[in-house]
């Protein structure tokens, strides 16, 4: 895809994003019915869960990109991996912030150590660790390799973490349970928000990818200039 089509796609995405976000906000706050026990507070759910799902999507992209980088050694995949990880951390941060906002009025505690929240926290730590690894390796080629390996480790670890935390919670149950169920009336709002988040994810990752690709281009140009000296 050439530069012009890329810009056009970005504009289309931007418009789509604006529309879907407005739609999501409308559906979440006005379109969806009021929940019985928690009232309007429950509406956080429409952002809390899709953010988590989008975060997982981001980390799946990071995993694929990490594997592909090790196979193909093309920095394109490394740029994608980095972008996906950063965006993923942002989305999981949203989960970690909306969780306590939801929990405090309902259960009078900021943090519930529920399976979902706990797993999200560990997931967050795993990918912050990924970004730390990237931060401390100065050479770009080595950085790409090391972080690709860690990206694979982190993604494989995630399901095992999920199982372990869930089992742990089963043994030490807590009265604070998050509502998982959605009545059919709530589903349109949920999926609208989910769609809006997915578009946001694609939009953000493209922009982050451009930034990284531009950085690589500068590096390449400096090398070319160096050769011609």
């Amino acid at each position, binding site marked *: 895809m050439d530069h012009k089509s890329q810009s056009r796609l970005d504009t289309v995405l931007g418009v789509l994003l604006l529309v879907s976000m407005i739609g999501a906000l409308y559906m979440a706050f006005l379109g969806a019915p009021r929940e019985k026990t928690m009232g309007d507070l429950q509406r956080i759910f429409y952002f809390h869960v899709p953010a988590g799902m989008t975060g997982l999507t981001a980390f799946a992209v990071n995993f694929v990109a990490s594997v592909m980088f090790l196979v193909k050694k093309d920095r394109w995949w490394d740029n994608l991996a980095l972008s996906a990880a950063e965006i993923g951390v942002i989305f999981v941060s949203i989960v970690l912030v909306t969780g306590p906002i939801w929990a405090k009025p309902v259960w009078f505690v900021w943090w519930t150590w529920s399976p979902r929240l706990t797993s999200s926290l560990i997931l967050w730590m795993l990918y912050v660790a990924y970004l730390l690894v990237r931060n401390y390796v*100065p*050479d*770009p*080629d080595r950085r790409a390799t090391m972080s690709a390996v860690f990206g694979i480790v982190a993604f494989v670890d995630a399901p095992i973490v999920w199982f372990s935390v869930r089992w742990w919670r089963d043994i030490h149950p807590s009265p604070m349970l998050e509502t998982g169920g959605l009545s059919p009336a709530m589903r349109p709002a949920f999926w609208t928000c989910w769609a809006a988040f997915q578009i946001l994810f694609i939009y953000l990752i493209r922009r982050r990818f451009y930034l990284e690709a531009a950085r690589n281009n500068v*590096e390449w140009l*400096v*090398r070319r200039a*160096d*050769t011609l000296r």
Partner: protein
Amino acid sequence: MIEVRGLAKYFGRFSALRDLHLSVGEGEFIALFGRNGAGKTTFLRILAGLSRPSSGEMRILAPHVLTPREARGSMGYLSHNTALYADLTALENLRFFARLMNLPSGDGDLAEKIARVGLLGREREPVRNYSRGMQQRLAIARAFLHDPVILLLDEPFTGLDQHGTDFLKAYLADAHARGRTCLMAIHDAPLGYELADRLVVIEKGVAALDVAKAALTLEQFMDRYKALAEER
């Protein structure tokens, strides 16, 4: 024997090598010259397989096509680091490497290798107690334990006294006589000139000068070397 085309290595924006071409025939002894940071060490490390080039082609034992593992088996690399375990004895060090290279590791076989580098009698002491010269000798025994067809040496004479220097000169001359291919990075121009058949100067990430020893006298070579180094 070794074919290198368009080799480049970048560390971020810094270029250690830019466009290196070199063709090494079997049995040749090449002395690599160049200023500090010119890329000699980087080049040797890439040949040894310790570092991956950013671009370019490299073939060891061309025209054969080797896996990296097979290539490692036919090379020996000696740098100014000894790669010896300081808390183990000479015998234990060599036994370890012999086992991993599928070589005979009986005490008798190893004693012979130790004797060759003149350390017999001190093989049961921890390497930590050795002088620099002794450690270098053991490092030579370790690096070339499997009698590789290609010897890569990075400034091997650094820190050696006269005794050690004489020993290494004799060792390399012997390897050369037995048809081994050698690439040696060296600072001391007269010494490199003496040992090698071919002289290569790496400057600005390329092979700026590549001549047979027979073509130049030592003085002529040193003049051209100096001229290259001053060119800015």
